[in-house]
C-alpha cells in the first residue's frame, strides 16, 4: 500500500516538476527580486547600490509618472464608455435572427487577432494630418484637417478610439454570450405586461448583463494599464508627454537611462494601482 502511494507520488511530482522549476526561475525569482530592486539603484553594469526608500520618494514627486497615470485615466474615460455602448449595441443586433451571423462575427473579430504593432502602424497612416483618410473625409465635407496625433488635447483620445476599434470584436462576443444567457421567458412576461422594448432594455437586459459588464470593465482596465506599442509607434509619448503611458515610461527608464531600480519601482507601483482599481471596480459593479 505504502509503496503504491509512493509510486503515485513520484509520478505526480515528475509530471509537475518542470512547472515547479519554471515557476521558481521565471515567476518566483523575478517576484522576489522586484522587492530587492525597488530599494536599490542599478545600471546593470556596476554593482547595485542600496538607496532605501529613495526610489519611492522620487516616484511620489515624479510629475512625469503622475502625468502617465493621468493619461491612462483619460484613455479609460473614453475607452470604457465607448466600448460598452457600441459593443452592446452591435451584440444586440447580432443576437437577433439575421442572416450571415457567422460572417459578421468573424468580421468584427478580425482586429482582435491582428498584431497591435500592425494595427498601430496602420492607424498612424489613417490619422495622418496631411494624407490620412479621416482628414480626407473631413475635407470632402469642407472641414479643415485635424491634428489627430500631434495635438496634446487629441492625441490620447485618438489612441483610445483606435484601441476601442481593435478590441471591440472581443467585447461584442462577450456581450453576445451574456445576452444569450438571459432567459427568454423574462421578456415574455414583460410582453404580457405591455412594456416597451426600451423599458425591457433598462429593466431586464442591462441589469442581467452586469457580470459581463464587470468583466469588460476589468479587462479594459488591464489593457489601458498595458498600453505600450500604441504610443511608442504613434507619438513616442508626445506631444509634451500627453500620450506617455506608464509602461512606456517604465521602458524608457530601463532602456534609455538604465535605471533598473527605478523602472522596477514603477512596475511595482503600477501593479499595486492595477489591483486597487480592479478591487474598486469589483466592489462598485458587484453591489446591488
Amino acid at each position: 500500500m505504502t509503496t503504491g502511494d509512493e509510486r503515485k507520488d513520484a509520478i505526480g511530482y515528475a509530471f509537475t516538476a518542470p512547472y515547479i522549476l519554471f515557476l521558481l526561475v521565471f515567476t518566483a525569482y523575478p517576484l522576489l527580486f522586484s522587492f530587492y530592486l525597488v530599494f536599490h539603484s542599478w545600471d546593470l553594469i556596476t554593482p547595485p547600490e542600496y538607496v532605501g526608500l529613495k526610489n519611492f520618494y522620487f516616484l511620489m514627486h515624479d510629475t512625469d509618472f503622475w502625468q502617465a497615470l493621468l493619461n491612462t485615466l483619460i484613455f479609460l474615460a473614453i475607452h470604457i464608455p465607448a466600448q460598452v455602448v457600441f459593443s452592446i449595441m452591435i451584440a444586440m443586433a447580432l443576437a437577433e435572427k439575421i442572416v450571415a451571423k457567422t460572417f459578421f462575427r468573424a468580421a468584427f473579430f478580425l482586429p482582435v487577432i491582428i498584431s497591435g504593432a500592425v494595427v498601430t502602424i496602420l492607424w498612424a497612416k489613417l490619422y495622418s494630418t496631411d494624407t490620412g483618410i479621416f482628414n480626407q473625409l473631413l475635407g470632402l465635407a469642407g472641414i479643415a484637417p485635424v491634428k489627430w496625433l500631434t495635438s496634446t488635447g487629441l492625441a490620447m483620445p485618438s489612441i483610445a478610439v483606435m484601441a476601442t476599434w481593435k478590441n471591440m470584436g472581443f467585447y461584442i462576443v462577450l456581450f453576445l454570450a451574456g445576452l444569450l444567457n438571459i432567459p427568454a421567458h423574462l421578456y415574455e412576461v414583460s410582453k404580457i405586461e405591455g412594456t416597451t422594448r426600451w423599458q425591457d432594455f433598462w429593466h431586464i437586459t442591462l441589469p442581467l448583463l452586469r457580470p459581463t459588464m464587470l468583466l469588460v470593465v476589468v479587462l479594459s482596465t488591464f489593457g489601458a494599464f498595458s498600453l505600450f506599442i500604441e504610443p511608442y509607434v504613434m507619438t513616442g509619448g508626445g506631444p509634451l508627454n500627453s500620450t506617455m503611458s506608464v509602461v512606456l515610461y517604465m521602458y524608457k527608464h530601463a532602456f534609455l537611462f538604465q535605471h533598473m531600480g527605478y523602472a522596477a519601482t514603477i512596475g511595482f507601483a503600477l501593479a499595486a494601482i492595477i489591483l486597487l482599481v480592479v478591487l474598486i471596480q469589483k466592489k462598485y459593479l458587484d453591489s446591488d
Partner: protein
Amino acid sequence: MKKLALYLILICAAVSFIYPFLWMAFISLKSVGDAGARGLLSSFFTLQNYKAVFMEIPIGRALLNSAIVALSTTASVIFFSSLVGYALAKLRFSGRETVFMIVLLTMMIPGQLTLIPLYTLIVRLGWIDSYPALVAPWMISAMGILIFRQTFISIPDDLIEAARMEGCGELRILTSIFWPLSKPAMVTVGIITFMNSWNEVLWPMMVVRRQEMMTMPQMITTFSVGGQSGGELGVEMAASMLLIIPILAAYAFFQKYFIDGIASTGIKG
C-alpha cells in the same frame, strides 16, 4: 423596417472593421506613384513593394525567427501544460491541491510587476539576443494548465485503469489516449499561444537588440518608427502584410477556435 436598421448597423460596423485592412492590402500592391491616389483600385497591381521589403530589411530572417519562436513556444506550452493538467486532473499525490492553488495565484500577478526583474535575469543569464530569451519565460502557461485540467477531468477513469492493466505508463496514457480525446482543447491552447507569441512586441523589444534576432513585430516597428522605410507607404504596408498573413490564414481555417478560445480565456495584456 426594424430589420433594415439592424442590417444597416451591422454592415456599417463590418465595413469599418474590414476596410482599413483592405486599404492596407491594396496599398501594399500599388506602385509608388499610385499609392497616393484615392480609392482602393488601381490600373495595375505589382509586387514591387514586397520585393523592396526583402531588399531593404532582413525580413526573411524575421519571419524565420517568428516561426521558430512561436512554434517552439506553442509546442512547449501544449506539452508541459498538458503534463501538469494531467497530473492535476488524474494523478493522486500529496501537494496536488497546493500546486493547483499556485497555478490560480500566478494568474493574478500583473505582468508589469515582474517585467523588469525578468529582464535583468535574462541579462545575467547572458541570453540577450537569443532564442531562449524569447521562448523560455513563456514555456508553460497557467491558462493552458487550467484548460487541460478541465478537459481531462471529464475523461473517464476507466480508460486509464484499462491502459494501466495493459502496462501503459502514465506518459503513454497522456499522449496516446488523452491527447487524441482532447483535440479541441489542444487546438484552442495552441492557437491562443501561437497568436500571442507571434504578435508579442514588448518582450522582444526588451531582450533583442541585434537585427538578425528580431521577430516580425519588432522588425516592422523599428522599420516604421526608425524612419528606415523612408516614408514609403507601400513598402511599410507590405511589411505589415507579411506579419498578418500567417495569422489570417490560420483564422480562415480555425475561426471558431480563435473566437471561442479568446472569448473564454481573455486576451493577454
